[in-house]
């Protein structure tokens, strides 16, 4: 589509040696840090609030508002504040953060430093999923360069401000992308989520005030300091300002990561950026925001735009992390859903019974259905199990496993009943029989 496509997150991507300090600095890195360290912390938070930036990890919560939840010094006593960057990137269909760090690690370090200064943190940890050892190595090298240049650690840029940034490697657990599970893991335990409240901003890592932000969110911050909130608001839509990275995968000609202004038509993303479907294929379904969000039909895809509001209004789904998974007419949707439920059954942390047991049941029913060995009664059971997991667990994982099931059954019932050898019953109620 013929709209401006400003490059905020990807501005240094593709430059030769973009991950080195010399090249990054030549193209503007750490100038925002210099400016930010002369600003009052509250003024930085205000810029982020005014920009309307929303968390890019999936929830879309306003970043500046989140930062504002950290108790002021007089209320938190001598407790330190921590900044955590969530680089766990474990949502199926999402692979943007990896390229953010790989191509521009200094933007992340700079974003961490500015955010830490704004919230009053002297230590920031970047938690990367265990499989990202190769990404961590590059980030550690960038951190070493920045530390050597007096940009990280003690007395940053001669201002007398101390902020340390450390990387921390996970070891293979989807749930550690959930912020309280991430904190449990960082503290050296099993990655099991904690009850909220207290929210991490009040009582997070080591029971101290903690802000957890996604990689992409933090990488926007230097740009905001440089260009101001109004410039950011000029991009995207009123309620979803700015640009977003979309990780596109599945049956498309040109999978990859694309930066686009929010509000960009979904069909244009599919046909232009992604290069469309393969010859002779038609669209069957799209998962727009990572595997946990409800699936969309081709009709919904044609009407929605890529922002937090439209996807919800048009399809009852979510922008999530921007993991855009495209399925063409070859796709067996029963097998696709069975695949996803195998994932959730494997990754449930085991803490809450509805999720631990229910994901396994849903997977086993779907496996039997995919093999043509299930009946229409099993489909009703599948629906009931999903409905009874949603909202009944400590963290959002339960809902994340239930939403794909609920939406596939609601939007593509013929595929499922067809596999059981019957037509969709006239009285089929996709959302019924919740124990609520």
């Amino acid at each position, binding site marked *: 589509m013929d709209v401006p496509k400003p490059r905020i997150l990807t501005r240094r*991507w593709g430059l030769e040696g973009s991950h080195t300090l010399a090249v990054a600095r030549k193209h503007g890195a750490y100038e925002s840090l210099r400016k930010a360290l002369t600003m009052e912390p509250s003024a930085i938070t205000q810029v982020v609030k005014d920009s309307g930036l929303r968390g890019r990890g999936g929830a879309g919560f306003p970043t500046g508002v989140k930062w504002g939840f950290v108790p002021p010094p007089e209320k938190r006593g001598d407790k*330190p504040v921590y900044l955590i960057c969530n680089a766990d990137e*474990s*949502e*199926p*269909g999402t*692979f943007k953060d990896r*390229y953010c760090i*790989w*191509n521009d690690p200094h933007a992340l370090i700079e974003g961490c430093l500015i955010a830490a200064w704004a919230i009053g943190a002297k*230590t920031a940890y970047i938690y990367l*999923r*265990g*499989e*990202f050892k*190769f990404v961590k190595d590059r980030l550690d090298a960038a951190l070493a360069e920045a530390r050597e240049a007096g940009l990280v650690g003690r007395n940053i840029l001669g201002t007398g401000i101390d902020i340390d940034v*450390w990387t*921390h*490697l996970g*070891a*293979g*657990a*989807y749930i550690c992308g959930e912020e309280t599970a991430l904190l449990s*893991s*960082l*503290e*050296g*335990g*099993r*990655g099991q989520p904690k009850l909220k409240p207290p929210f991490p901003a009040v009582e997070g890592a*080591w029971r101290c005030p903690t802000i957890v932000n996604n990689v992409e969110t933090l990488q926007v911050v230097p740009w905001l300091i440089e260009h101001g909130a109004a410039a950011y608001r000029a991009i995207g839509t009123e309620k979803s300002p700015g640009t977003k990275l979309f*990780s*596109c*995968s*599945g*049956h498309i*000609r*040109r*999978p*990859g*990561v*694309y930066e686009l202004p929010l509000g960009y038509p979904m069909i244009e993303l599919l046909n232009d950026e992604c*290069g469309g479907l*393969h010859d002779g294929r038609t669209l069957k379904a799209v998962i727009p925001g990572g*595997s946990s969000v409800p699936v969309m039909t081709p009709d919904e895809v044609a009407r929605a735009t890529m922002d937090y509001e439209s996807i919800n209004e048009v399809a009852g789904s979510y922008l999530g992390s921007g993991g855009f*998974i495209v*399925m063409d007419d070859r*796709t067996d949707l029963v097998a*696709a859903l069975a*695949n*996803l439920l195998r*994932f959730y*059954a*494997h*990754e*449930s*942390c*085991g803490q809450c019974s509805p999720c631990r047991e229910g*994901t*396994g049941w849903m997977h086993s029913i779907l496996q039997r259905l995919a093999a043509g060995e299930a009946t229409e009664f099993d489909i009703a059971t599948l629906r009931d199990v999903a409905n009874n997991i949603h909202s009944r667990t400590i963290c959002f994982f339960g809902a994340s496993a239930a939403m794909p099931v609920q939406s596939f059954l609601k939007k593509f019932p013929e595929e499922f009943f067809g596999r059981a050898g019957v037509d969709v019953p006239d009285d089929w109620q996709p959302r019924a029989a919740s124990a609520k």
Partner: protein
Amino acid sequence: MAGAFPRPPDQGHGPVSWTDEEQARIEEICARYPTRKSATLPVLWMAQRKWGWLSYDVMKLVAETLGQPPSEVYAVATFYTMLKKQPTGTYLIQVCHTLSCQLVGAEEIIAHLKKKLGIEEGETTPDGMFTLMRVECLASCGSGPMMQIDDDYYEQLTPDAIDAIIDGLRSGQPLPLPRPEVNKWTFRSLES
């Protein structure tokens, strides 16, 4: 993780200890966190890189080093899939089989690897070189099908590419790193 209780390690490493250098490195890591317990994952990683896998002997050493009960270190080690509770071959091959990779042919890749290596999933080749496993999403969805061999990603796999990768490792001449696809973030689909 649910549904996958690991078999307790039935072999051990015998007496294990850190070198002075490693001990100093551990203290350096501990200093980054307010508690020594927080160094559990980094130190388990160090141990796994040194001894290949985490036997009871190794877990006990980690517990002792960090002043933790051994049961707590065992609980952590068994929670995370990348921490090995059993030995594997020299090279651990992990093929992603979650939806995005599945849509672009993960099963064909696994079938080809089984044929090439002459083993089933979960098995190790008789020469002890390769162990084959399937794993969940590795955040490589746009460049699938893909596999991870130890720390490295191999993406946009085809049967020919697999043959070259395996033959390279077998002959002691692995393909150079970083491979070009790691530097890209958009891909032309293998089919087109």
